[in-house]
């Protein structure tokens, strides 16, 4: 069964259906979008069930000639990491549609257009993780920017068009650097064994270490902008601060993961030597991201920007885990990617509801919400706890694994990174205290609590956070063989813990 093409095709069908619906019938557009995303989720679950866990090769491989004279194929296939990320994306999509039921009303364009953009984006989110042809990956990587650009600029708030442009320019510049590297790979493949973009074949390329380093940088900077890693992060707070909550969830939860996913799939596979060369530098950037993101988050007055900065800190952890080059670090990073999507989704969605009720996104405008809207307040508190990686909630497992994995090889980095956890408590608990506790700020007395739709939308997120917090092993069982395989292919063995030395 062609699972992956089916998955990529379904949202497009949904988008086509939505596009022929009458413009006035907004409800029908929403329903069609919701049904489509649920259908995609069901297909993804079906695919996950037939995924062979122990098989480290790419699965569900499909390959169709696209532009044969350039050696370009429409080639898809997934390993466990891609599977987990696709699962994450398709779970988030219906939640975003349901949670943001009324999000599109403040936009420049019709509600219909909003859902068409979301569905087209879903196709690309699946495709970007599934692509095994570098050209196809690049095409989707770049093309994805367009729907997001219109989602931010058309349906966001505040300085939305400036934020959308900043987002697009940053990403395009990164993309062009990657294009330069891809062209070099393409030409070299032509010299060595015939033009190809197949990732497995490209990983066999012979190249000098200088070339490898330069090409690595082309890819890495593109991914570091996407992820974002300090100092390439400045677009994110603006974009996330202006985008509608649903768009922000997709932006931070899924699109930014393309960056970290790309580091694993492309940087490490194509340029193993260069990855090792740059590891010390990247680890430093990662640690800076962790602390910098956390410090700036503490200082934020705007709730959406706060969440954006926390994410920069979280992406620092993910990058740290990837480049620590240990199996625990890698497994932790992948798990972190999955869990970060849900804790950020919870934060953004609840924050979005708070903001739309209050009409302001400044933290100090809230206060005493716990008394007025207890369900909303507690959900936000819960989302915050998940974001600061409280033991028992899912993000803790990923963060713990990343730190353990890093510590075995780079103890100093791990110790410094651990301060990020302390800061996390600050950046979450301070706004929680300001917004939820204390006397009710005047003007907030009549805020409404979450309605049934919102509760239904947030419930699966809460459930995932709790269940995977206590019982992460189903996910880890899928991830572990893949990460072990990557680490061993890079020629690393996990350092043996050596406590007895002391």
């Amino acid at each position, binding site marked *: 069964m062609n699972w992956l093409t089916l998955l990529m095709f379904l949202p497009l069908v949904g988008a086509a259906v939505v596009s022929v619906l009458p413009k006035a019938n907004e409800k029908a557009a929403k329903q069609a979008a919701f049904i489509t995303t649920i259908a995609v989720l069901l297909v993804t679950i079906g695919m996950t069930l037939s995924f062979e866990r122990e098989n480290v090769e790419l699965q569900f491989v499909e390959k169709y*000639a*696209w*532009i*044969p*004279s*350039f050696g370009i194929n429409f080639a898809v296939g997934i390993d466990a990491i891609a599977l987990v990320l696709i699962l994450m994306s398709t779970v988030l999509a219906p939640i975003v549609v349901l949670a943001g039921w009324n999000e599109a009303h403040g936009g*420049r*364009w019709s509600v219909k257009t909003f859902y068409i953009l979301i569905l087209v984006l879903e196709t690309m989110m699946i495709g970007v993780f599934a692509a095994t042809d570098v050209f196809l990956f*690049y*095409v*989707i990587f*770049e*093309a994805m*920017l*367009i729907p997001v650009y*219109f989602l931010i*600029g*058309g349906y966001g708030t505040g300085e*939305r*068009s400036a934020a*959308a*442009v900043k987002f*697009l*320019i940053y990403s*395009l*510049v990164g993309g*062009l*650097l990657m*294009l*330069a590297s891809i*062209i*070099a790979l*393409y*030409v070299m493949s*032509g010299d060595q064994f015939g033009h190809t973009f197949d990732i497995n074949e490209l990983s066999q390329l012979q190249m000098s270490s200088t070339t490898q380093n330069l090409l690595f940088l082309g890819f890495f900077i593109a991914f570091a902008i996407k992820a974002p890693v300090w100092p390439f992060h400045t677009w994110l707070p603006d974009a996330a601060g202006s985008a509608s909550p649903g768009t922000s969830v997709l932006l931070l939860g899924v699109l930014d993961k393309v960056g970290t996913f790309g580091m694993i799939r492309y940087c490490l596979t194509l340029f193993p030597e260069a990855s090792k060369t740059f590891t010390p530098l990247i680890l430093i950037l990662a640690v800076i991201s962790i602390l910098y993101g956390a410090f700036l988050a503490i200082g934020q007055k705007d709730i959406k920007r706060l969440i954006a900065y926390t994410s920069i800190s979280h992406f620092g952890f993910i990058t740290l885990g990837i480049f620590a080059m240990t199996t625990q670090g890698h497994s932790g990073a992948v798990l972190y990617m999955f869990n970060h999507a849900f804790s950020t989704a919870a934060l953004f969605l609840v924050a979005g509801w708070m903001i739309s009720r209050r009409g302001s996104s400044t933290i100090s405008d809230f206060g005493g919400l716990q008394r007025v809207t207890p369900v909303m307040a507690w959900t936000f508190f819960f989302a915050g706890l998940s974001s600061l990686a409280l033991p028992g909630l899912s993000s803790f497992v990923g963060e713990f694994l990343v730190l353990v994995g890093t510590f075995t090889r780079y103890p100093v980095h791990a110790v410094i990174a651990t301060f990020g956890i302390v800061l996390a408590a600050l950046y979450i608990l301070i706004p929680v205290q300001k917004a939820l506790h204390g006397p009710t700020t005047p003007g907030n007395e009549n805020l409404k609590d979450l309605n049934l739709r919102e509760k239904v939308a947030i419930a699966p997120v809460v459930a995932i956070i709790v269940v995977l917090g206590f019982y992460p092993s189903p996910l880890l069982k899928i991830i572990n063989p893949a990460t072990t395989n990557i680490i061993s292919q890079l020629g690393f063995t996990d350092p043996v813990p050596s406590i007895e030395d002391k």
Partner: protein
Amino acid sequence: MTFTSPVLSYTLLSPMLILLGGALIGVLVEAFVSKAKRPIVQLTLALGVLTLALFQVWNIRGEQSLTPAMGSIIIDGPAVLLQGSILIISIIAILLIADTEHFTALPAALPGSEEERRAIAMGTQVTEVYPLTLFAVSGMLMFPVAGDLITLFVALEMLSLPLYLMAGLSRRRRLASQESALKYFLLGSFSSAFFLFGAAYLYGYSGSLDFAGIQASVIGGSGNDVLLLIGIAFLSIGLLFKVGAVPFHSWAPDVYQGAPTPVTAFMAAATKVAAFGAMLRIYYTVFANAQWSWSPVLTAIAVITMLLGSLVAVTQRDVKRMLAYSSIAHAGFLLTGVIALNKSGLDATIFYLFAYGITTVGAFAVVTLVRDSSGEVTDLNRWKGLGKRSPFAASTFAFFLLAFAGIPLTSGFIGKFSIFSAAYESGATGLVLVAIFSSALAAFFYIRVIVLMFFSDASEDGTGVEIPSILTRSAIVASAAITLILGVYPTPIIDFISDLATFIR
């Protein structure tokens, strides 16, 4: 002295002959058909002639001959591809030219004169533009297939002279239009003079005017190299002027802005194909063995063309001027394909020319739609909020801009990818990096226009969007469709090009 009668192979020459014949009939139509019927007769004639010529080009694909006209014309794969591209672009452009609203009622009348007012009141439509277009197209068809310097020069003049006239035909802002025509004419004549000067030196170098003879001398290396270098330099100036490469670009913004927009569309797209077609033939065959004499200079020109085009475009406030600078930047990208001097460079340049030409016609077609009571509105500030007033115009224009910027899933991306990889393959790594850097710069101003159209609130100044006529609408839809298809599934075209594109010499 005996007279040898020329042997012509009419089949291979038929596209050009059909065009010339059509143009002459067009002139007769001007003389003998009543005023009221002229527009429709001329349009039918022009479309018919262009389609017939395209059909003939299709029929002679795969043919190769050095002597269809005693060595003055060379028909081979690239010739067919370029002629086909020019014809397809011209057919779409003619659909825009058919909207005579853009042209002055009486070109001979002084701007603002009583005569002109009377002509406007009578509702006269200018129809000379059709035969002029056909003459220009026949020159363009001949330009890339010329086999000697004289034919090349004749073709150059044949495509230029009608364009000089057409640039001055604008109905609105006639003075600016005439100024642009004069500027184009003067600078064009100047560059023609350079061209002829170069041709003379090349004759002095090789003792021959046809490409075969010059090429033989270049390979033999027996001649005086100074003559060759001067010849190449001056000939190149003539050609670089036509494609608008820096530092021979200064006419482009004024002419693009002043000329009636349909003419700009035609000129920007088709001239570029013709001129780059001729450059490809000359650099890939005649001067190929003197690569080290011209390649460094051309590389420098490509670099400044790309950078200056992209940089200056950022500061433009007028949509036509912005597109003019963007076309200058694209000329730089195309030059990287010429410099590559390999098979993939040839394929890529031909693909890029076709893709870019179509997108350009489409973009200018949208420009013709945005108007207020006094004609077209080209001030970008007044394009604000266009997305709200006309989603069709704004979204197609945005799509064309994304294609110019080279975003994946548009023809522009495939073009850029193939032309940059060809340049990289030839070892011009630095050039590719500059090209990629200027693409990033260029993306900035394309996106700025999209922001204006979609994310800015409309100003209340009566800028409206014309309901497109059926012809204009089909031109826009056709260009958008081709741009999309070439971006999503370019395989048939790429294979077609790479099968055919080999110079026979």
